[in-house]
């Protein structure tokens, strides 16, 4: 992956730029895991880095690195697939490269400020220059504006390349969905004294990203990847994609209501949120069936030639199909009805869902795209999984599943003891936190976090070497 910076087989500058995004994404992924480990240790030993690098800081960088690495990998994936789908080079590639460096410089400054300055006085200047203090979108306002500019450049490239080149169904969905995805960020860029109003619009960004536009994005990537990896028929893949869009937006947009049960918003969101979010797993089942169906169908359809052109990418995409359904679908549905959510809202249950869903729905397929990028960069016809690829996917998946189980158990305990039994006040919270059940769960979470991290090390090593090794073997 690294040696491919100077010397690679990619025909298009757009794809080279895609790989640049992947590289930064991988670094941020590592930062996310390290910060998660610090936060996990602080749950077990609260004095660890107390007063120096507090939980709030570790957690902020943990979730911000998560969002940003995923956005990087998403932008990278789009730049990578753009010439394949449209048949031409991105129209404003020079500008695209400039935007990449501007964004990367801005992200570096933001992260350094998070780590070394951390917090500021209760003034507007803090929100403009240090951090905005709103979970997931903490980036200070100056960076928000920078992000908007960079995204406009990115969108300009995608839109005008699409208009100029071939217009496939996959790209049509991508172009329309990206507009919504980028536009939604604006809903998180204002300050209000009214915390209910604040949370209302905050969820427009968070929910309509991760439970609507990001999911459609994943559907689009899966469609592209299946065509690329197993020669799936475009007509079938694109028809499925439209069905997925229908079901994902049909359930996900109004599924937003499940975040409006308890933030001061009216009662009718109970019914709307319950109904539509209960439907949210349906498209995830469909996506799962679709991937397996296409895989099964293409297997053996080409005589002696194996159907899969990129083993590790396909493995990650199948993991995505399953993980999306399990993490976003099942773990989401667990606590989505208001009758349950009044107790589970704001507990480790949410953390369990968050870990499995972000991994299952997004990390998996984006890693798959990185493998596709490596294959392209080294010009390998068929890329087989190495020992490192297998260790990476096994350890990361096992680690995340382990963390999810541990956090789910912690969540059950917290829900029943803190919320149902003691009523969720200060003492109720700490009583539940101090129980051996919680402590055991937090210990297992840390152990599984370490397993995930070891898997990540294998992943990096594999991405750095698999291209060259495959070249030698072919």
């Amino acid at each position, binding site marked *: 992956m690294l040696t491919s910076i100077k010397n690679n087989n990619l025909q298009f500058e757009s794809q080279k730029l895609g790989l640049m995004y992947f590289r930064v994404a991988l670094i941020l992924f590592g930062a996310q895991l390290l910060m998660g480990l610090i936060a996990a240790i602080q749950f077990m030993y*609260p004095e660890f880095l107390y*007063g120096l690098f*507090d*939980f*709030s800081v570790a*957690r*902020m960088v943990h979730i911000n690195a998560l969002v940003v690495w995923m956005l990087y990998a998403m932008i990278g994936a789009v730049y990578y697939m753009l010439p394949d789908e449209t048949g031409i080079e991105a129209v404003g590639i020079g500008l695209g490269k400039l935007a990449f460096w501007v964004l990367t410089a801005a992200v570096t400054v933001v992260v350094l400020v998070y780590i070394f300055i951390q*917090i500021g*006085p*209760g*003034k507007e200047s*803090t929100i403009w220059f*240090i*951090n*905005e*203090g709103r*979970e997931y979108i*903490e980036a200070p306002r100056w960076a928000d504006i920078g992000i908007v500019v960079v995204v406009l450049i990115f969108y300009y490239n995608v839109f005008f390349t699409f208009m100029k080149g071939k217009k496939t169904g996959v790209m049509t969905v991508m172009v329309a969905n990206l507009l919504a995805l980028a536009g939604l960020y604006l809903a998180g860029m204002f*300050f209000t*004294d*009214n*915390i*209910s*109003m604040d*949370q*209302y619009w905050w969820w427009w960004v968070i929910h309509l990203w991760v439970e609507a536009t990001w999911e459609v994005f994943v559907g689009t990537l899966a469609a592209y990847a299946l065509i690329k990896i197993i020669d799936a*028929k475009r*007509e079938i893949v694109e*028809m499925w994609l*439209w069905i997925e*869009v*229908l079901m994902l*937006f049909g359930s996900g947009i*109004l599924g*937003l209501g499940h975040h*409006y*049960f*308890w*933030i*001061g*918003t*009216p*009662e009718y*969101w109970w019914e*709307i949120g319950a109904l539509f979010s209960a439907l949210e797993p349906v498209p995830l089942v469909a996506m799962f069936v679709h991937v397996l169906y296409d895989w099964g169908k293409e297997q053996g359809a080409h005589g002696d030639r194996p159907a899969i052109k990129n083993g590790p990418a396909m493995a990650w995409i199948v993991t995505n199909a399953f993980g999306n359904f399990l993490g976003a679908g099942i773990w989401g549905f667990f606590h989505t009805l208001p009758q349950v959510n*009044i107790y589970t809202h*704001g*507990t480790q249950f*949410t953390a369990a869902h968050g870990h499995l869903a972000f991994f299952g729905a997004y990390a998996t397929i984006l890693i798959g795209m990185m493998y596709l990028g490596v294959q392209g960069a080294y010009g390998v016809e068929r890329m087989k999984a190495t020992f490192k690829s297998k260790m990476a996917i096994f350890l990361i998946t096992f680690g995340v599943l382990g963390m999810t189980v541990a956090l789910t158990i912690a969540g059950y305990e917290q829900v029943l003891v803190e*919320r149902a*039994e*003691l*009523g*969720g*006040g*200060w*003492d109720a919270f*700490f*009583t539940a936190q*101090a129980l051996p059940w919680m402590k055991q769960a937090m210990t297992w979470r840390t152990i599984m976090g370490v397993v995930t991290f070891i898997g990540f090390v294998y992943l990096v090593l594999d991405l750095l070497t698999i291209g060259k090794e495959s070249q030698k073997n072919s």
Partner: protein
Amino acid sequence: MAKSHSVWTSIRFWRQSAAWVTGFAVVLLILLTFDTMRQIKMGGKRVPSPSVINNHIDYKYSKKRGHEVPVIGDKEPFFGKQWSDEEAAALLHKGKLTSQAKNCMNCHTLLGNGAYYAPDLTKAWLDPKWKQMMPMVGAKTKEEAIAKFLQHPEMYPTHERRMPNLKITPDEAKALVAFLKHMSAIDTNGFPRGFSKGVKEFEAGGTYAH
């Protein structure tokens, strides 16, 4: 590909359906958003105006609604005085800003959203814990106790996990207390349910007491 005869395998059919369903969902969301905006505006029936900090606030079970609702009671002094509408609004503004500047949400939850390292702050103003804290921090009123605690949380550990010193000034602390008091008066449809109901048993050495 041969022309498809069934509507179920027609890309055009699914594309149009996707567009219609998405459009319908978006329109409905926008209409509901207008109604919700009306209901949650500051000073409306669900989110009180900032001057609610001048009133006693309680959280009582409503038989009609099947859960607890905030009950806004008689006037009571807040930091020893009544605050004019402008003063209360300015204080709340500073409090909300400070809550973001100090990154409260990455340890605590607010209205149930945030991190799960520290207690939920939705009804923190009403927490019985502050009565215990008053003698501990040397304060005569609840608001004073919260303000003192916020300025030096590291000095008053109540559990293994301590809140760090976030360099909160006396003015910021006062504003944060106003923010918490205002938040406790928001109608959250009964969240959290049965707030602090087990605390009496807990204090009396109940099952889970240390």
